[in-house]
């Protein structure tokens, strides 16, 4: 009995050192050596300031920017320290109401676009921090962004097409566009006219 207890405690100490100390340290050292940018969270800097992470959605509401998917993370959405999905069931009236509201808002903001709204633009992601939108979701917003930036819609469409990420297509991954990257490139290539 006492012997078993001692064994258990020593066993705990041994496994603790291997699993909770040696292993994370090894991953940390190797990770930082080979992939320092990813290990820090794929942060993006512009003019020496961190503007976000390539992998984390941030709010965009101006006309001149592409907007990400709606977010249920935190009280106002896009809380990157309190990620969350909506957890609403498909038959919950609250979900339908929220989607109807978002559809109406999107249609009003994109009057030039007559196509139905792409589903990903009116549904929240599981994390609330989905950094991507579908290609259709980006194209849907092209006319609005073009107008706000004073360029033709075709130019923005071509701009989107250049930035479609198809990595992983061979394992069945959908084509997608990274919203933050898209908007950073927009600011660089098509600075908005000064009002």
């Amino acid at each position, binding site marked *: 009995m006492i012997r078993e207890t001692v064994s258990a405690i020593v066993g705990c100490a*041994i496994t*603790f050192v*291997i699993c909770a100390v040696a292993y994370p340290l090894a991953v940390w050292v190797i990770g930082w050596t080979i992939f320092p940018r*990813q290990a820090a969270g794929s942060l993006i800097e512009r003019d020496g300031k961190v503007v976000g*992470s390539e*992998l984390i959605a941030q709010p965009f509401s101006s006309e001149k920017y592409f907007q990400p998917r709606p977010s249920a993370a935190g009280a106002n959405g896009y809380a990157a*320290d309190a990620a969350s999905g909506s957890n609403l069931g498909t038959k919950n*009236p609250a979900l339908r109401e929220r989607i109807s509201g978002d559809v109406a808002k999107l249609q009003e903001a994109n009057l030039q676009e007559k196509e139905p709204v792409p589903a*990903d633009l009116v549904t929240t*992601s599981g994390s609330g921090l989905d950094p991507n939108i579908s290609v259709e979701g980006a194209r849907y917003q092209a006319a609005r962004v073009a107008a706000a930036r004073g360029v033709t819609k075709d130019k923005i469409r071509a701009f989107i097409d250049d930035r479609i990420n198809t990595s992983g297509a061979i394992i069945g991954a959908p084509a997608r566009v990274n919203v933050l990257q898209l908007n950073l490139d927009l600011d660089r290539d098509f600075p908005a006219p000064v009002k």
Partner: protein
Amino acid sequence: MDSTLTWLHPAWALAIPIVLSFPLGWLMFRALDISAANAGKGFDAIPMLLLRLLGRKTPVGMSWKRYAFSMLTFNLALFVITFALLYTQHKIPALNPDHKGSLGELGYKIGDDDHPGADTGVVFNTVCSFVTNTNLQHYSGEQHLSYFSQLAAIVWLMFVTPASGLCVMLATLRGLRGDKDLGDFYADLFRGLASVIMPYCLIVAVLLVGTGVPMTFEGAATATTLDGASTQTIARGPVAALVAIKQAGTNGGGFFGPNSTHPFENPSPWSNMLSIVSIVMLPMASMIMAGFMLRNLKHALVLYGVMLALLVVGLIVGVNAEMAPSAAVRDLPVAVSPNMEGKEVRFGPVASATWASITTATSNGSVNSMHDSLNPIAGAVPMTLMMLNVVFSGIGAGFENMLMYVIIAVFIAGLMVGRTPEYLGKKVEAKEVKLAMIAVLFHPLLICVGAGLFAATEWGQKTVANPGSHGFSEILYEFTSAAANNGSGFEGLGDNNPAWNIATGIVLLLGRFPALILPLAVAGCLAQKKRVPETTGTLRTDNLTFAGMLVGTVLLVGALSFMPAVVLGPVADHLAEVKTAAK
């Protein structure tokens, strides 16, 4: 998405682990089932060195009772130590850059009633959950745990609990094989960790960092957003180390609240594939290992095939159901598309539904989409797989569960032909069948009693997030997940309050330890018996007939136990109309 590509993702997600499970299963057999004469040679030197630290020069031979006692004592020590670590996390000065407070003082909400302050229930629940290899989480990692707790309590338990399951499986196999003794628990534990789980996780963790999973001890990053220049606090941490073992050890508890939907846990389709393969890799390989250990690969392949068939059926039903548009967008001007609520664009509906099946077939329980928002039938698939609880399931635990069904299938087959049932050359008698019946019936008992109680009282009624039968599904899912030691959830459920914390904590413990010890007892009994010679009248357990018999037994017990509950939950939900909001 191009419809011809629909099945590309699940095809890869099954093909890779199936192909790799054979060589890996053989390697596990060579690394874990080592005779006394060969102990400490080659790679076995490391685990044997660790055993020396414990004061044993060579592995000792244990009876099933001593083996079970060692395992239980070790797990009890884990429970006590991690409870203390989590309870005092705010007082531990190391690795807490974001100054996380006490886990025991989170407070909770029931409906609209706020209950601030102390609730030790969440610490109890968390420890039960991680000691049982379940990882049901009533807290939210990035909000409530320090980096120290994530590594010292969570990652530690994520390694040693699947290793404990693996140990019990090894002992059971030795018993079934007819060995004199069932091995040394600590030798098995160290071998499992040092020779199998740790090397695998190191490789996966580094690859995960490459795909974008952070691995840092710095606190949250602060960014100034592009539009409006507001401040965004981006939680990060030593995520890659945790995610690797979370997937490989059938654990499933996320570093972040929403688990593998979070872009830092699962940044790309590549990390998704790596994760999904890791989820099912060791459970599959351990079945092959069983074949080598029993010197009866054909019998192991029958069990493997039965598990795989059940998984494939669940997966196909789930993916098809999830390709349908959500009922919530019916008649709205939204482009026709699969249900995207609770899903990430980089995975899409197919990879999400595939993951939902694989994570619940195995007892992993990590999620890459929110199961609460799945279409009702797609949500019934993970629930069903957890109710069956034998489809690969936990490392070690899956074999133990399946063994109980095998004993019952052999018994029923024996009754049908009027012969004393035999299994692997040993007579199966009243004692073994009784133990198997208890093990098999305990699982539905935990789920049905728990779900019934909470559905009938305010404990459940006040905490559901969705109305109608979907609310009942949330309760049913939570108890199923706890009893199956899975850990996924219909996460809308307000489960962080004393009633849920205590009830699921108890179900977690009762769902784990009897399910490990009863099969070990059966193996211990069978080991004592004399081998009976095989004749033409012997019921073969290595052919298709027996596979059919086993599937029938599993489905019959499952359907009889759970059909009414499933009809009240997801099936009713599927048939219900969407109610527009009250006018």
